[in-house]
């Protein structure tokens, strides 16, 4: 199956092409073809998994060269796919969660006239994302990287008839561009340092490169990861990206695409291994973002934006883990997988709530929905317990490991990183409980014409399956360190290190903070009445509500000076450059005029031109040949 792994990309890609080309003719059945394509990709991934499991651990990396893009010479470019434990993990996550979300969308988008186009984009996304994780070189990864960016742009702006949605799509696109530049520079540096861009050669050559080179490459990769994964300081687009249909938020902006940055860091382990400074920066960015996202999540009243902030914060955990080096890589991916399940489940739950509440997203107008939608309540509840990290639910196994790993080390690092991770756990418990209680408990604060109802089976079944995953996947993968052993061929074997505090103390401290956070939330939002209008807020709340004024900062630091710079440049261009150009342009225009005069439509002129040309060429040959 690993030799057929290209099928996993080809199926959804072909489906997307067919859906886009056939247009309205495919409206009747297009969505089911989309589901089938994604499901087919999952089966291919499953086949590859079974094949890899049948091999010895060190043989579990199958690199298939599909074809040679540009043969020979200095620039030999192969297009190849790499099936190893890391990429297959992603393939399964993307296609499994993706297929469920496809099914869910069939019902969720039922009344949208453009449902077929939606599925085409969704398939396009799945294909691009699979290309991203299966690529065996940075160059091909970049193709997928741009592909998911394109799909994300198209899907955020899916309802682009609304101006602010189109703006949100543009914003995501522009911010991602900054990250892409990072990846391009990183590739340039790699090419000059190693002379190749495929993972194998880079891994082979990395140990012989200087630390400065590796640090530069690592930092540029981090810029790329920050853009794609909404990490500080490039996180501002994710909240606005919630403008897309909710299944998109679940698949792209929670479970898969936004985690591509973590994938990139883990995949580049050979580079970060030789660049400890870059690793510290990665961990610092992760720690910073995990707190930032948590604070924003505490203040948001829009259910999707609160979940988006939580995604940002959870990816912060993964980045932190990835920045810790070999001891953290496996846990970063572990948390990424469990998070993919519980966060996608919760997003689908939020979509289900919106479905029953006429697209209301303000949590202050929810409340007491437990009675109206029992399935949504249970599935969301399991996701909530998972993200809180209550044993034995999934999040406990993955997040606790990250907290433990963050406390490993010497000097100031374990205390800062570990502290941030620990505090983050408490904050997470608070804001997620706040979200949960405000939505499902307390008194009903619905607007007058609301009649909440449970969603159809096509929506609830995927939610139930994801909820089961949120509950038990962590336990299943953690038993006997199954998952970390599975990833070992890629992430390397990590020696066991003791944290600076004993592990039981850490677990106890985490759980205590979680319980305190959830308790405060219950007192404030579960038991007490929640005002329907947001109360006047303190400066701190206001700051968080406004995403730490990131937009204003961006505007002040980048946009305004950028505008002034462009205006100055335009002025200089008009005054200085154009001055010169105009003089020169007069020359060009003169040339154009002269040639146009020759191109006057008269055959005798044409023939004369040819004759003159002939004479000149004869002169060139005679003179030049001398």
């Amino acid at each position, binding site marked *: 199956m690993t030799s057929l792994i290209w099928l996993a990309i080809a199926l959804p890609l072909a489906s997307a092409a067919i859906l886009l*080309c056939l247009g309205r003719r495919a409206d009747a059945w297009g969505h089911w073809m989309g589901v089938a394509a994604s499901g087919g990709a999952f089966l291919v991934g499953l086949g590859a998994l079974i094949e890899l499991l049948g091999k010895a651990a060190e043989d579990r990396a199958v690199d298939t060269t599909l*074809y*040679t*893009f*540009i*043969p020979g*010479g200095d620039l030999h470019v192969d297009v190849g796919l790499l099936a190893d434990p890391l990429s297959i993990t992603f393939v399964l996550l993307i296609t499994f969660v993706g297929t469920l979300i496809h099914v869910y969308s069939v019902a969720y988008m039922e009344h949208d006239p453009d449902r077929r186009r939606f599925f085409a984009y969704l398939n396009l996304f799945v294909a691009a994302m699979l290309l991203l994780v299966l690529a065996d070189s940075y160059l091909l990864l970049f193709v997928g990287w741009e592909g998911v960016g394109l799909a994300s742009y198209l899907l955020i702006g899916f309802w682009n008839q609304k101006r602010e949605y189109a703006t949100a799509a543009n914003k995501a696109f522009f911010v991602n561009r900054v990250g892409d530049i990072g990846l391009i520079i990183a590739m340039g540096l790699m090419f000059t340092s190693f002379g190749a861009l495929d993972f194998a050669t880079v891994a082979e050559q990395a140990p012989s490169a200087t630390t400065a080179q590796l640090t530069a490459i690592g930092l540029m990769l981090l810029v790329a990861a920050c853009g794609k994964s909404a990490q500080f300081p490039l996180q501002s687009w994710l909240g606005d990206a919630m403008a897309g249909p909710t299944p998109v938020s679940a698949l792209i902006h929670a479970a898969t695409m936004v985690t591509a940055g973590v994938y990139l860091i883990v995949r580049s382990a050979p580079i970060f291994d030789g660049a400890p400074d870059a690793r510290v920066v990665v961990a610092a960015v992760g720690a910073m973002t995990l707190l930032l996202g948590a604070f924003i999540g505490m203040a948001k009243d829009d259910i999707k934006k609160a979940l988006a902030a939580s995604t940002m914060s959870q990816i912060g955990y993964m980045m932190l883990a990835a920045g810790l080096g070999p001891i953290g890589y496996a846990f970063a991916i572990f948390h990424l997988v469990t998070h993919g399940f519980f966060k996608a489940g919760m997003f689908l739950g939020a979509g289900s709530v919106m479905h029953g509440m006429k697209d209301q997203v303000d949590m202050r107008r929810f409340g007491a929905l437990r009675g109206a939608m029992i399935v949504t309540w249970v599935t969301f509840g399991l996701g909530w317990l998972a993200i809180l990290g209550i044993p034995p639910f999934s999040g406990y196994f993955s997040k606790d490991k990250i907290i433990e790993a963050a406390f490993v080390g010497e000097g100031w690092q374990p205390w800062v990183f570990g502290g941030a991770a620990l505090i983050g756990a408490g904050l997470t418990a608070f804001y997620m409980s706040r979200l949960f209680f405000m939505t499902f408990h307390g008194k009903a604060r619905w607007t007058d014409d609301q009649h909440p109802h449970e969603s159809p089976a096509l929506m609830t079944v995927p939610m139930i399956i994801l909820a089961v995953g949120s509950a038990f996947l962590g336990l299943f993968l953690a038993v006997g360190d199954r998952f970390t052993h599975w990833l070992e061929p890629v992430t390397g074997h990590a020696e066991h290190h003791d944290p600076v505090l004993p592990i039981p103390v850490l677990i106890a401290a985490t759980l205590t903070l979680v319980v305190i956070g959830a308790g405060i939330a219950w007192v404030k939002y579960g038991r007490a009445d929640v005002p329907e209008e947001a109360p006047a807020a303190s400066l701190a709340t206001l700051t968080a509500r406004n995403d730490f004024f990131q937009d204003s900062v961006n505007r002040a630091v980048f946009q305004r000076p950028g505008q002034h710079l462009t205006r100055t440049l335009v002025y200089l261009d008009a005054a200085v450059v154009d001055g010169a150009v105009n003089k020169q342009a007069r020359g*060009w225009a003169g*040339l*154009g005029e002269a*040639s*146009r005069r*020759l*191109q006057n*439509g008269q*055959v005798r*002129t*044409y*023939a004369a*031109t*040819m004759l*003159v*040309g*002939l004479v*000149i*060429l*004869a002169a*060139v*040959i*005679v003179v*030049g*040949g001398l």
Partner: protein
Amino acid sequence: MNFVTPEIAWAPLAPIIIVLGAASIGVLIEAFVRTPATRRSVQLVFGLVALVAALGTAIAQWVALDGGGTVVQQFMLTVDRQALAWQTLIVVFGILGLILFASRTRAGESAFTPLGSTAPGSIEETLARRRGFEVTEVFPLLLFAVGGMMLFTSVTDYIFLFVALEVFSLALYIMVALARRRRLMSQEAALKYFLLGAFSSALYLFGVALIYGATTQTSFAAVGRAIDVISGRDALLLAGVVLVLVGLLFKIGAVPFHSWTPDAYQGAPTPVTAFMGAATKAAATAALVRIVYTSLYPLEWEMSWLFWAVAIASMALGTVLALVQTNVKRMLAYSSVAHAGFILVAFAGFTEEAVAALPFYLLAYGLATIGAFAVVSQVRERSEDGAVGAEAVRLGQWAGLGKRSPLLAGAMALFLLSFAGIPLTAGFIGKFEVFSAAVAGGGWPLVLIGVIASAVAAFFYVRLVVLMFLTDIPEGAEDSIEVEDGPLAKLVIVVTAAAVLVLGILPAGLLDVYADAAQFLVLPNG
């Protein structure tokens, strides 16, 4: 006297014989099938069958010539893999052109005038149109052109090359004159093309005479050997070489022998422009390659001056003039002049890589050209009373085409990006191969100029893309444009677009094939 029956190697000649034979039978079909509508269908099917058969036999012959193998050297012809590579290319362009010739608008209007012999706007013309006449002679004419071009790629004798040149040129002159709309312009273009073509043919013949004078030979190989022997510089020979090359550079459309291109491209019926733009350039390039590599190679040093000068002039002037065009067809014509320059860049250093790179470049260029002109043929003006008229060729009329027909505009954008040489299109690979061949031959300054010219050229290609997709349809002009959807034209657009994309992503297989073709066998006895 003792006559020896010549042994004719039929198999290698089969592709050419099939096409030229079919062309002759096509003329008979004109005489014996009376109803115009039936005649058109018969001609189309017959022409397609003949071209597909030619393609099949050419490929079979390719396979038979395993690794160079036996090569026919009769009748001043050489059928080696190089010749077959170019022949298949031209037949493919012929097939696409033939389909495009048969395409019609919704109102059943073909691209050709109903009766070629009538004066534009005369009563006879109106009558002919009303009675449903059709110039179905274009189909055999196209076959003659294809056959002539196939010969042109395989001939190894200066005199016979001239015959082949005239075979396809005469067919082209007639076809250019047959536009249904804007007939005066079409006839003027044909006359200009004919006069200038005759002029260049005369120059070529004069050149051949001078070469014969200097070497007493007319076959490529014998001339090559003779030049080798001539010590010192022979003015007669050099003058002859320049004249011969000028004749070919005229067909390629390189500066300063390009003046016919914009007028002929603009005036010709668009399907003819499509076929001519793609196939003539390929045939002329093939002949140029053969002459330069098998006959004039001893004059490498002298010729490189000529090639460099013409390449630079073509790239620069083609690009600059394309920038200021406001007519889509003229813009594409000047872009073809610039592309002639890029083609000549490959000759820098006369490397073997260039021989392998050029067929791919011409294939990529030809597919995009046919596709782009097929798109042009679908965008029509509509008058206020709703009648669909001539093609809308003013750039301004293309504003917002992406909103009227996203797929058509998307295909056009793809062709333009391929012209510009953007990665993941065939044009990129072609340009990359050609430029690498030039670098390998030490022509890096030429490549530098080529890259700069490409960058400037990207401007006017992208300008059209911007116009189609990012500009709104002008107020009040919503109904002034009609987008046709002739199924045959659509077929051509889809096939060429798919090919441009596939060759951009999976070029390796074909590149290997053309690398095989880059083996010349210089004739042992002329």
